[in-house]
C-alpha cells in the first residue's frame, strides 16, 4: 500500500539523515564515528557467516527432501484454520530458541519465495517483532543465579506468539503481495 511505503520511508529517512545532522550539530566528527561503527557491523556479519551457512544448509536440506511438504500436508488443515501459511511454521518453531536458526529460516524463505513475496515480508516482520525468548531468559536470569523464573518464560512466549500472528495479519492487510 502506498501509505505504508510512504510512512516507512519517512521513518527510515528521518533516522538516516537525522542522526548524522544531530551528531554534527553536537560537534561530533560524524564520519569518523560512522566508520568506526561500520567496522563493527562488518565484524558482526563475519561472526554470523559460519552459523548461517551451517543452518541454511540444514534447513535447505529439509526443504529439498520434501520434509516441509509432508509437514505442511499433515498440519495444513490446522494451520489454515488459524490463518497461518505453512511456509512460516519452521520460522515460528525456531524463533524462541535460536537467533542463528531463525535467521537461517528467513534466508531459506526468501530464497524459496523471493524477496518481494508476501511470505518473505511476513517472515521478516516476525523476526523484527519477536525475540529469542528462551535465550534471553537463560542469559539474564542465569547471570544473577535465579532458578525459579516464574512467569517470565510464559509471558515472553505469549508476546512472541502474538507478535507472530499479528505479523501475518498486518502484512496481509498492508503489504501488496
Amino acid at each position, binding site marked *: 500500500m502506498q501509505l505504508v511505503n510512504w510512512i516507512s520511508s519517512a521513518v527510515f529517512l528521518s533516522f538516516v539523515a537525522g542522526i548524522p545532522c544531530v551528531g554534527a550539530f553536537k560537534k*561530533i566528527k560524524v564520519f569518523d564515528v560512522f566508520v568506526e561503527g561500520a567496522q563493527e557491523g562488518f565484524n558482526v556479519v563475519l561472526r554470523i*557467516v559460519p552459523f548461517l551457512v551451517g543452518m541454511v544448509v540444514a534447513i535447505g536440506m529439509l526443504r529439498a527432501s520434501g520434509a516441509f511438504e509432508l509437514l505442511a500436508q499433515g498440519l495444513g488443515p490446522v494451520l489454515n484454520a488459524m490463518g497461518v501459511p505453512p511456509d512460516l511454521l519452521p520460522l515460528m518453531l525456531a524463533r524462541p530458541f535460536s537467533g542463528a536458526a531463525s535467521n537461517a529460516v528467513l534466508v531459506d524463505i526468501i530464497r524459496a519465495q523471493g524477496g518481494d513475496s508476501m511470505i518473505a515480508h511476513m517472515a521478516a516482520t516476525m523476526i523484527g517483532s519477536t525475540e529469542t525468548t528462551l535465550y534471553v531468559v537463560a542469559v539474564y536470569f542465569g547471570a544473577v543465579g535465579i532458578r525459579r523464573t516464574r512467569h517470565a518464560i510464559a*509471558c515472553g512466549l505469549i508476546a512472541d506468539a502474538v507478535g507472530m500472528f499479528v505479523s501475518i495479519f498486518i502484512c496481509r492487510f498492508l503489504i501488496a503481495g
Partner: protein
Amino acid sequence: MLSVLWAGMMLVSVICAVMTGHVDALVTSITASAKAAFEMALGLGGVMAFWLGLMNIAEEAGFIRGLARVIQPCLRRLFPEVPPDHPAMGAMLLNIAANMLGLSNAATPFGLKAMESLNRLNTQPGVATNAMCMFATINTSSVQLIPATGIAFLATGGAQHPYDIVVTTLLATIISSIVGLSAVFWLQGSKWFKLEPTASGTSEQGS
C-alpha cells in the same frame, strides 16, 4: 542441544528424501544452500555496516539517554516495586532505549547490570521477582524502531520495498508488547506463579 537438533535435521532430510524420491534434489541443495547463505551474508554486510555505523553516531550523540528520558514515565508505572531513583531503574531505561534503537551490543551490558541491581531488591534468593519478570518480558517482546536485519535480508533477496516492514514490524511489536505486559500483570498474581510470602514478611504487590 543445537548440535543434536542440527544433526537430527540432516538425518530427517536424508530419510525423507529417500522415502519421497527427492535424493537428487537433496544432493544439489547442499552446495546451493551453502553458496546462497554466504551471498546473503555478504549482502547483509553492506546494510549492517551502514546501519551500525549510523547507530554508532546515535550512541555518541546521546540518543540512548534522550530516548531513556522519554520512556522514563512509562517505566515507573511498570515497576511499582522499584524506587524511581534506584540504580536498577537507570540501567533498565538504558537497556530498553538501546534495544529500541537496535543496539543489542550496547543493550546487553545494561541489561545484565539491571538484573544485578534488581536482584539486590530481591528478598528470596534464586526466585525471580515481579520486576525481573517484567523486565525480561519487555526485553523478549522487543520494541524495535527500525528492523535492520529483516530489511537487510529482504533487500539482499531482491525486495523492491524492503522498508515497508518498518510499519508492519512496529505495529506487530507494539501489539505483542501490550499483550506480553498485560500477561505479566495477569500471571504474576496467578496461583501458578505467585510468590509465597516468606517469614521475613515479603509482601506481594501483584495487581
